[in-house]
C-alpha cells in the first residue's frame, strides 16, 4: 500500500510540472487566436471566448514587417543551408571515419573545438568579408555562412555515425572494383539515412531559429528573415500581444511540426554524440 501512495505522488508531481511547463506556450497560443480585449483580462479567463484567425492574418500581412515574406526568406536560407552541409560534412566525416592521414588528429581536434565557439567570434570580420564578396544582405550569402557554421558539428556527428556501420560491405565493394567515391555515395550514404535524418532535423531547426547571423548580415526590409521580423512587431510603446503572439506561434510551429514528425531522429541527434549506441 505504501509503495502505491508514493507512486501516485510521483505521478501527480510529474504531471503538475508538465502542466506548469505548458502554461507559457498556452498563453502564446491563446493570445494569438483571441482578440486583445479578452487577453488583457487574462488568457486563462474563458468567460468570453471568441477565437479567430485575425491575429494570424495580421501577423502574416503586417504593414511594416509582413511575416509571410519572412517565412519565404527563411526557407530560401534554411533549405540549402540544411542540404549543403549534410553533403559536404558527410563526405569529410567519412574521410575522418575510414582513412588515416597525416594531419587528421589535429584537424579533427580543431573542428571539435570550433563547435564550442560563439557566433560573436566571427561577426565583425565576417561582416567585412561578406561586404567584399558582395554577399552582404544576400540570402544566398547567409545560407553559405550557415553551411560553414554547421559543418563542425555535422562532421563530428556523422563521423560517430559512420563508426557504427560495418566496414565489410565497403571492403567487398572495393574488391569488386568500386572507387572510393562510388563506395561513399552508393553504399555508405544509403546506409546512413537515419543519421542524415537526425542531422537534417537539427540543422534545419537551428538555421530556422537563427537570429544573430541574420541580424548582422541581412538588413533590407524585404529580405529580413522570419526571426528578424519578430522584434520589429513589438511596437515602440504599446505591445500588441495578439500580433506578436501569432507571429511567435507561426515561427515556432515549423520546428514543432518537424519535431513531432521526426521525433525519433531528433532525439537521437541530441543524444547521439553523448550516449554512443
Amino acid at each position: 500500500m505504501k509503495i502505491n501512495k508514493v507512486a501516485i505522488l510521483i505521478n501527480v508531481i510529474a504531471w503538475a510540472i508538465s502542466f506548469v511547463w505548458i502554461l507559457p506556450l498556452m498563453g502564446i497560443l491563446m493570445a494569438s487566436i483571441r482578440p486583445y480585449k479578452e487577453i488583457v483580462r487574462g488568457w486563462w479567463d474563458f468567460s468570453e471566448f471568441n477565437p479567430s484567425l485575425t491575429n494570424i492574418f495580421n501577423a502574416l500581412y503586417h504593414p511594416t514587417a509582413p511575416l509571410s515574406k519572412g517565412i519565404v526568406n527563411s526557407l530560401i536560407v534554411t533549405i540549402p543551408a540544411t542540404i549543403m552541409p549534410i553533403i559536404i560534412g558527410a563526405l569529410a566525416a567519412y574521410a575522418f571515419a575510414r582513412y588515416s592521414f597525416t594531419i587528421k588528429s589535429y584537424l579533427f581536434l580543431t573542428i571539435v573545438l570550433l563547435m564550442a565557439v560563439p557566433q560573436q567570434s566571427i561577426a565583425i570580420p565576417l561582416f567585412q568579408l561578406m561586404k567584399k564578396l558582395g554577399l552582404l544582405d544576400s540570402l544566398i550569402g547567409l545560407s553559405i555562412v550557415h553551411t560553414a557554421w554547421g559543418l563542425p558539428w555535422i562532421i563530428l556527428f556523422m563521423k560517430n555515425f559512420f563508426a557504427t556501420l560495418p566496414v565489410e560491405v565497403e571492403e567487398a565493394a572495393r574488391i569488386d572494383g568500386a572507387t572510393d567515391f562510388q563506395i561513399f555515395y552508393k553504399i555508405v550514404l544509403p546506409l546512413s539515412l537515419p543519421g542524415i535524418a537526425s542531422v537534417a532535423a537539427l540543422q534545419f531547426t537551428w538555421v530556422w531559429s537563427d537570429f544573430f547571423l541574420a541580424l548582422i548580415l541581412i538588413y533590407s526590409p524585404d529580405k529580413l528573415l522570419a526571426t528578424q521580423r519578430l522584434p520589429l512587431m513589438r511596437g515602440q510603446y504599446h505591445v500588441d500581444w495578439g500580433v506578436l503572439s501569432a507571429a511567435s506561434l507561426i515561427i515556432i510551429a515549423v520546428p514543432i511540426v518537424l519535431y513531432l514528425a521526426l521525433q525519433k531522429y531528433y532525439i537521437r541527434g541530441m543524444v547521439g554524440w553523448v550516449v554512443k549506441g
Partner: protein
Amino acid sequence: MKLNLTPYFFILPALILIIIFVLYPISATISLSFLSPEGYFVGFDNYIRVLSRREVINYDGILKGYFPMGAIVHNAIWILIHLPLSTLLGLVLAVLLQNVKGSSIIKSIIFLGMVTPLIVGGIIIRFTFDREVGVVNMFLKAIGLGHLVRTWTMYPDTALFSLILGSVWLWTGFSLILYSAGLAMIPKEYYEAAKIDGASSMQIFFRITLPLLKPVTTTVVTMTLLWELKIFDIVYVATYGGPGGASNVLALLMYFLAFRSLDFNASSVIATLLTALTLIVAIVMFKYVVRK
C-alpha cells in the same frame, strides 16, 4: 608506399568553407582585439580599456548590490542559477518519469522548450512575466501577493532573474532527454542485485545510478555552460539588455559595441574573451572524455 589523396579530396570542400567563414574570421577577431583603430599593435590596451568599463564590470553595483553589475557578472549569475537548476531538474524528472504513466508525453512537453527558437523564447518570457497578460502575475494574485504584480522584465532588480528563470524553462528539456537516455542504458541487473543486498532506494540512487550517469552529467554541464555563455536572442528581444543595462550579457554587449558604437576593437575584446571562455569549457570536457 603511395600517398592516398582520397581523404584529402573528401575533406577539401568542408575545409575551404570552414577556413574562409569560421577560422579566418575568428583569427581576425582575435587580432582586432590587439590593434588600435588605425591598425597598430597596442598589446593589452584594449583589454584594459574594455574591462574597466561599467557595462562590463560595475564594481559599485556589485558592492552595493544593485543592477547593472556588468555583463560579465550577469553571465556569471546566469550560470550560478541556471546550471544547477536546469541540470538537477532534468535529472530529478528523468528519475521520476521512469515510474510515470504517459512519461513520453511529459518529456515531449518539457522538450518543446528546446525546439522553440530562442527569439520566440524571449517573447514568451516577456509575455509570461507581463503585468497584464502574464501567468506569473495571475499566480501571484491567486496566492494573495497581488501587491507584487508588475512586468518583471522591466525593472532593474528583477529583469535578469526573470530571463534566467525563463531560460530554465527553455533548457531543462536538454538535461531531461540526456539523463533519460543515460538511465535507459543502465542494466536492470544492477538494481536487482542491489535490492537483494538490501540497499535502500536512496543508496541505490547515490551509489549506483549517479556514478553511472557521470559521463551524461559531464556532457550536460558542458553544453549548458556553453549555452549560458552564448545567451543572446532572449535578452535581445525580451529586454534589449535593459533597463539601463541591468540584464545585459557579454554576447549582446559585443553586438552593441560592434554594430551600434562601431567600436570594432572593444567589441573584438569581448568576442575574444567569450571565445576563450567557451574554449576553456570545451577543452576541459575534451580532456575529461579522452582521459576516460
